[in-house]
């Protein structure tokens, strides 16, 4: 049994919130550079140049890449041999978010309820997903999620008869119809199987993979490639102005499901595909 104090969790979450919003992952930067090479439209090339310039400015100035610094989505993988001491775990995560968004000059985008729309003023509560895993470490991932791309996401319960083609068509249609709204070029996370909520969570977790890393299952990897090609054939392009690169990557995660179901969760991320990770 290893003891971890909540102070360590607060500090780690705080730093991850700031770093995720200031510094884009190298994998995303590489994907954007590749996209710039592949893009044929002049306006699309200009957009990608400015997106890459923005990443550099944010890095240099220690500023938020996007003003929408998102809902703080926090994934906790807690080793089963860890004992958390000094306070409440989820309150510690929220305190880290509170401090990170304040000290990092990040925007507070959370409202108290869906109808009164009153801002909570500290970007809490975080949306926290917890997994218990073997070991005595805690792995923390902070993935700030912007509203524009989240709004274009979808969970659909397809009939099993829809099969592979039904899934491909649904993902392509969802991303292409979203057009400029989710800030293309986008990253697409697809969750297949499980239940209604499991498919959505798998779609979100798929966004955490290194950009363009294929699913180890060759059939799913082939599907990722096919969907990506079809999305990029639809012509939406960078920022929707027309072009070859609408998506940087499609990542699929899957899980067994009920004999009656084919759940599909499609989570779209913008080109500011942020997440930072730390093990404590």
């Amino acid at each position, binding site marked *: 049994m290893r003891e971890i104090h909540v102070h360590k969790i607060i500090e780690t979450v705080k730093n991850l919130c700031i770093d995720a919003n200031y510094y884009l992952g190298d994998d995303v930067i590489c994907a954007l550079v590749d996209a710039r090479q592949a893009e044929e439209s002049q306006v699309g090339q200009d957009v990608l140049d400015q997106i890459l310039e923005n990443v550099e400015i944010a890095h240099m100035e220690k500023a938020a890449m996007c*003003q929408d610094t998102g809902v703080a989505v926090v994934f906790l993988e807690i080793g089963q041999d860890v004992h958390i001491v000094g306070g409440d775990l989820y309150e510690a995560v929220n305190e880290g978010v509170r401090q990170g968004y304040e000290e990092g000059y990040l*925007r507070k985008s959370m409202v108290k309820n869906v109808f009164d729309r009153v801002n909570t003023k500290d970007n809490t509560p975080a949306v926290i997903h917890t997994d218990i895993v073997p070991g005595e470490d805690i792995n923390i991932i902070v993935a700030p999620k912007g509203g*524009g791309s989240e709004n274009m996401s979808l969970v659909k319960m397809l009939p099993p008869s829809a099969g592979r083609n039904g899934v491909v068509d649904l993902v392509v249609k969802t991303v292409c119809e979203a057009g400029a*709204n989710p800030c293309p070029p986008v990253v697409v996370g697809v969750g297949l199987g499980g239940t209604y909520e499991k498919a959505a969570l798998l779609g979100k977790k798929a966004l955490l993979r290194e950009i363009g890393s294929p699913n180890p299952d060759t059939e799913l990897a082939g599907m990722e490639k096919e969907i990506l090609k079809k999305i990029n054939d639809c012509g939406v392009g960078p920022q*929707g102005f027309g072009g070859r690169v609408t998506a940087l990557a499609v990542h699929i995660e899957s899980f067994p499901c009920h004999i009656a179901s084919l759940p599909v969760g499609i989570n779209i991320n913008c080109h500011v595909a942020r997440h930072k990770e730390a093990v404590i």
Partner: protein
Amino acid sequence: MPEIYHLTTPLKDEDVEKLRIGDQVYITGDIYTARDSAHKRLIEALDGGRPLPADFKGQVIYYAGPSPAKPGKPIGSVGPTTSYRMDAYAPRLYDLGLKATIGKGNRNPEVIESLKKNKAVYLAAIGGAAALLARSVKASETVAYEELGPEAIRRLTVENFPAIVVNDTLGGDLYREGKKQYARS
């Protein structure tokens, strides 16, 4: 071929009538930020016969909610938010003489009709390029609804703020045409 125009606010009919989809514009002068909750309040004020916190005649509304300014900076990062959420409100404001809105993403047919009727335009700034766009903002002042935090109405003084014409006064649509040009069947 797309043209490049430098515009100074407030805008006149002739400033926007010459714009065509795909043109690049650089805006200098004062523009106003307003997004979801601010729009709701503006329309409620109009419905209640109350005065608006600013005269939008000839003005530009930027659909944006900036991140907080660091010390010594006029503003934090400030990119566009998705515009369709303001579609329900936009025609009322265009009817009052608003000449342009800046955001990202499609507008509905009512907004596009309103642009034709009122000789106004819809422009897009690059979503997610918010640290870059902040460099065009020289000053910022809260005008109304401060309690809304990032959703308050702010007057931004901008220099050469870059945007692209998406919907012009003739009903053109860059998103539709751009997609058509690059779609492969």
